[in-house]
């Protein structure tokens, strides 16, 4: 386990002009060799938190440090950070090559030395054929890849990414995941925000769940999922009435939902109920589908905040959404 916090924040408060409180009491830390995620819906305060930690925004209250330097010590902190914000931060009139030249100048690195680091990134992100063109002509995904390559090409010991995979195709998204894994292995500290729970679950050693400007939970993905404690049991049989009767007999206060032909019920993950149900049905009823899905981080978020990470589609209730997320395993909402 990492021994010290490279990025450390305590009780961060940010009140924007107009008395709009963006975050209140945010405390987090990230150590070398650790990947830390900040997850939450739009407007939760993720970007504000990361902007404070990148020195772009001054907090109204609280404290923060990077590698022991107070967040106000921008001179010492900025060389240590690789930053990719939600806005890709590219000049649409400048070529990709010119961006690398400017990045090298801003970080005091010789262009040749920078390209030695950047070339493998350019190759991996497949940016080579774009570099002579004005960035304004790139697709959104290519611009995002360019921004990530620029953030990494200075070889910073700490990485702060704000929603790095938004707008990327699945292949590029996977590549970003690989790079984050590599940075973990290199002992770098990676702090990133995301709305994608699968991404957070796959990559993060530690996750902070943020909602309405506050941290509502934190822990490893496993610890967070344990907060829910309930999985989703989904059964399709030839005789649903009999199944319903069996379930209601076993769990009198359980809520049985219908999802097409399937009956769906939440049960504790370590429950013996599934085996009992199967035993009760055996011989009488043909079971066409029987699955127990463990809780996901998305379930955790719903459990903690009472609402989903992504906007609710028109005409659906929050309860419907919870059910639908299991149906589609989350993919439906992307």
């Amino acid at each position, binding site marked *: 386990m990492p021994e010290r916090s490279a990025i450390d924040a305590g009780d961060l408060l940010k009140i924007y002009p107009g008395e709009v409180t963006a975050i209140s009491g945010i405390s987090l830390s990230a150590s070398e060799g650790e990947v830390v995620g900040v997850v939450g819906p739009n407007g939760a305060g993720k970007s504000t938190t990361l902007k404070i930690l990148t020195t772009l*925004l001054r907090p109204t209250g609280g404290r923060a440090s990077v590698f022991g330097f107070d967040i106000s010590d921008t001179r010492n902190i900025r060389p240590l950070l690789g*930053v990719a914000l939600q*806005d890709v931060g590219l000049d649409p009139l*400048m070529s990709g090559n010119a961006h690398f030249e400017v*990045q090298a100048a*801003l970080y005091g690195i010789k262009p040749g030395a920078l390209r030695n680091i950047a070339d493998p990134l350019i190759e991996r992100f497949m940016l080579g054929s774009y570099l002579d063109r004005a960035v304004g002509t790139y697709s959104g995904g290519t611009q995002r890849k360019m921004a990530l390559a620029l953030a990494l090409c200075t*070889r910073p010991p700490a990485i702060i990414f704000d929603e790095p995979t938004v707008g990327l195709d699945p292949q590029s998204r996977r590549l970003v995941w690989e790079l984050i894994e590599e940075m973990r292995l290199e002992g*770098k500290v990676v702090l990133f925000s995301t709305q994608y729970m699968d991404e957070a679950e796959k990559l993060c050693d530690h996750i902070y769940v943020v909602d309405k400007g506050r941290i509502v939970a934190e822990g490893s993905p496993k610890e967070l999922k344990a907060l829910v404690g309930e999985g989703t049991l989904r059964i399709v049989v030839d005789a649903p009435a009999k199944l319903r009767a069996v379930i209601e007999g076993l769990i009198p206060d359980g809520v049985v939902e219908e999802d097409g032909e399937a009956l769906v019920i939440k049960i504790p993950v370590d429950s013996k109920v599934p085996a009992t149900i199967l035993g009760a049905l055996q011989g009488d009823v043909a079971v066409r589908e029987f699955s127990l899905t463990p809780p996901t981080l998305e379930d955790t978020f719903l459990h903690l905040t009472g609402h989903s990470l992504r906007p609710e589609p028109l005409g659906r209730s929050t309860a419907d959404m919870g059910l639908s997320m299991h149906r589609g395993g989350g993919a439906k909402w992307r």
Partner: protein
Amino acid sequence: MEVAAADQRMDAKAPRAFLIMYRRAIREALSVPATTILVPLILPIFMLTIFGRVFSSAAQLPGFPPGEDYATYIAPAAVLVGIMLGSATAGISTAMELQTGFFDRMRVSPLGTGVSMAGRRMADWTRLAFFAVVLTFASWVDGVPIENWPLAIGVAVALGASWGVVYGGLALAASIRTANAETVQAMVPLFFPILLMSTSLVPMRLLPEWLQTIARYNPVSYICDSMRSATAGDFAAGSTWKALVGIAVAGILAQALIQLASRHRAHS
């Protein structure tokens, strides 16, 4: 160990970054020559050719230098109009950088935005110096006698372009404060009252008394006086000195506004 390596890498590279940012700003201006070069030159050329003739009899009024025609009198004002019209480019470009997030890319870097802004302002100075040369030449074509070309060009470039960069600082401060290019463009016509409240269009004696007080503190009065003398072949040390002080004071005020706007941005 990584931290130490990153520290060592950060030896000062500001001059190289400045040159890169300067070249970038020049390339940017040249990519839209109609907006950055041609349009600002239209009004001053119109002033020289039309105003000079329409108001030619004004030069007969007491207070005007004897024997000098009105076109010759307002030639420095025309040069300054072109310069002030073209001075908002750094502000507009910075507003665009704020909108695209490129400004924040620079803010999170070790060198910050200072080098970029310095590069942009130097690029503006270069372009405005070019305006000063072109408009001095245009005034000669229009019939304004130039007795000492090196002196006329030197004073027009040194005072005119420097004043343009200082005046453009207001647009830069507004762009950092608002991140809005339209707001910056809306400030451009401010040049008009600044000229009217100086001796650029009529001599001090013809201004109302209250306006004379303002004109005495307006650097534009001294810049125009110096340029007018230089065109006639004289170096007016008194006016030039006052012009330089005025430009310096205005520059300090503009820089203070830029700092205030930058501080505001860090808090919002």
